[in-house]
Each structure stands twice: as C-alpha cells, then as structure tokens.
C-alpha cells in the first residue's frame, strides 16, 4: 500500500487540528484489566464464589436504594437503567449485570466502578479483601424492606471500604 498524503500536507494540516489527539475503540468494561493490574491481591474464584459476590451486590444495591427511600422504578429512572435489570441484580445471583448498568449504578451511588464490576461477577479474578468484606457484609444483612440501625451501620462501613483508595 502507499500513503496518499504528503509531508507538506501534514505540516500544513496538523497545526489546524484540535490540540489533543483522537482515540477510537475500547470498551466501557475495564474490570478485567483492573483485576489483572493488581494480581498479587487478586484471586481467581469459582462459580459458587461469584454467586456469593452477586448476592452481596444485590444486597448492596437494595440497601443503598432503601437508604434513599427509592422504589425500584424510581431508582431505574434516576440512574437511567432498566427496571427489569435492576430487579434481576437485586434478586437473582445467577444474573450477570451488563457493564452499562454497573457503570450507571457506580456513578449514581458514587461507589468505585472497579469494585462494583468485580462484585457483578463479569470477571472471575477478584480482589481478596473485597471478596471477604462483601461476603461478610451480605451475611450481616437481612432481606427485609426496611433497614435496621445495625444494617445501616454495616452498609455505611461497607460502602466506605468500597471507596477506599487502597490497592484494589
């Protein structure tokens, strides 16, 4: 193949381009790579562990929603996600949430995307600390419609753990 442009043309046109270089492609799901980035803290987990993480994710989403006093319909609208998907995430630990839903929820609830992604089970490489904390958190929480004081404290503690800037 031959290049159809000259260096004179480049010299004339490059200065007229926007200052920053363009980028194309890539996906919205950085979780796999993020997990690989810190492999020393990362464990590859099996299907049973993935289900436990998703139970924790469902509990987390439901409790964050209840804490704000929102119904599923209201949260779906505010976070711009589908109601059906939200229901599945809250109640079906065999459902794999799509990256977009996780992204929207992480933005809405201000929880680190990397960690929510790991909890959604899109990757089987998961941070050990996150896994242990998530399972413990889920075990402490009952599936009821209102949060007890104790549950609220457990929720707050878990969310602040999620947002720590520690190596995860």
């Amino acid at each position, binding site marked *: *193949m031959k*290049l159809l442009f000259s260096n004179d043309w*480049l010299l004339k046109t*490059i200065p007229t381009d926007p200052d920053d*270089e363009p*980028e194309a*492609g890539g996906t919205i799901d950085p979780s796999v790579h993020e997990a690989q980035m810190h492999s020393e803290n990362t464990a590859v987990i099996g299907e049973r562990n993935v289900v436990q993480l998703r139970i924790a994710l469902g509990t987390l989403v439901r409790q964050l929603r209840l804490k704000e006093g929102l119904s599923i319909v209201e949260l779906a609208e505010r976070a711009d996600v589908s109601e059906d998907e939200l229901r599945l995430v809250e109640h079906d630990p065999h459902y794999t949430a799509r990256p977009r839903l996780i992204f929207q929820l992480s933005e809405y609830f201000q929880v680190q*995307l990397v960690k929510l992604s790991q909890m959604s089970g899109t990757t089987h490489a998961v941070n050990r600390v996150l896994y242990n904390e998530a399972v413990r958190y889920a075990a402490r929480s009952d599936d009821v419609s209102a949060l007890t004081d104790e549950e609220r404290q457990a929720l707050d503690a878990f969310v602040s753990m999620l947002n720590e800037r520690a190596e995860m």
Partner: protein
Amino acid sequence: MKEHVGSVVLLDRTSGEPVAADVFRELDDKNFQDIETLWRPMLQRRRAEFPSWEAAGGANAQDSHWEWVDKAKEAERIMGRDTFAVECDGETQGLMLIDVAYARLPAQRGRELTYIELLAAAPWNRTKFLSTPRYKGVGRVLVSTAISLSVDLGFNGRIGLHSLPQSTMWYQGAGFTDVEFDTEKEMRYFEMSESDAAAFVGLKRSTL
C-alpha cells in the same frame, strides 16, 4: 512481517518544528516492548489516580485496559485485521488496529470499509495526560493511513470507527459523519464517505 509503509512528519509540540517519523504495518517485538514498558506503566499510574472510568476520560487515561499485544498477535493470522504503528525517536508514538466492517451511512450502506477498531497516541503525546506532551499529529497520520489502506483494499477510502467521548469533536472536525449512538458498544459511531475521505487527505475523489 513488519513492513515500512512510508516516511511522515510529526510536529514537536514545544519547538513547533517538524520531526521525521515512520509508519509501519504489523507490529513487532519492539512495539510490544514499548507497549509493556513505556505505555502501560504510564497509563496505569494515571488511571489509578481516578475513582472511576468516566473520570479517567478527563485525562485521556481510559485505555489502560486495552490489550494491544494480544489483539495485534491475533491480527497477524486473521485476514482483514491489520495493525499500524507510528514510530519516531525509536519509540512507538501511536498505534492502530484495523478490521473490515460494513458501512452504515445510507449512501454506502452494506459496502465494505476499513474499520478502525483501536486508535491511540502514546500517553506522552496526549495534552490532558502530560503538561508538556511531545508530538502532535499522530492521530492525523493514523486516520490518513487508514484511508490509504481503504483505497488499497478497494474500499475507495470508506472508513468507520467508534469514538471515545472526548474525541468526537476531533472526528467531526476531520469530516466524519456522526452516524449514531451504537447501543451495543455504548459509543458513538462515526463514518467517512468516499468523498469526505478524499477531501480529508486533500485529493479529488476521482483520484482515489
């Protein structure tokens, strides 16, 4: 086999002077080494400073997870896939991964086009990444190379790509048509018609 496609120029962002660079087709071990030892550590360090993927867009650090090496190796054995590198100072200044896809613009719908699957400048050439980035022009060289390839393959200059959110202005300015928001990729899809491609590289359409 890595092939030298042509000699080009970039602009030194500090001095404004032209710098000689080269375009290569198919990456080699040197490019892989640059990706692993130069690109990746910078991208990861920068990415780690942001709480979310979206926030990382503000500093052009969203592509730390792209797996260039795997994709480039795969491209070597799959027809229609191609990789290109811009090199200067003995370092990889920009990369592009190409595939064949089908046009979506009504006037050329269904025709083959050169699809830019991934395109990125080295982290040190990005303005929001460093306060003193090195070279300007990597994106223009790569997009023009994609048009040249499209012509070589018999696609008459038709090219398409999915833009990262912070790059849409660049593509619009270059004459791409903003075709649609692609719900599957969750990115905007841009395409160049044959005549827009000819205009971009400064040629008459009939000469493509």
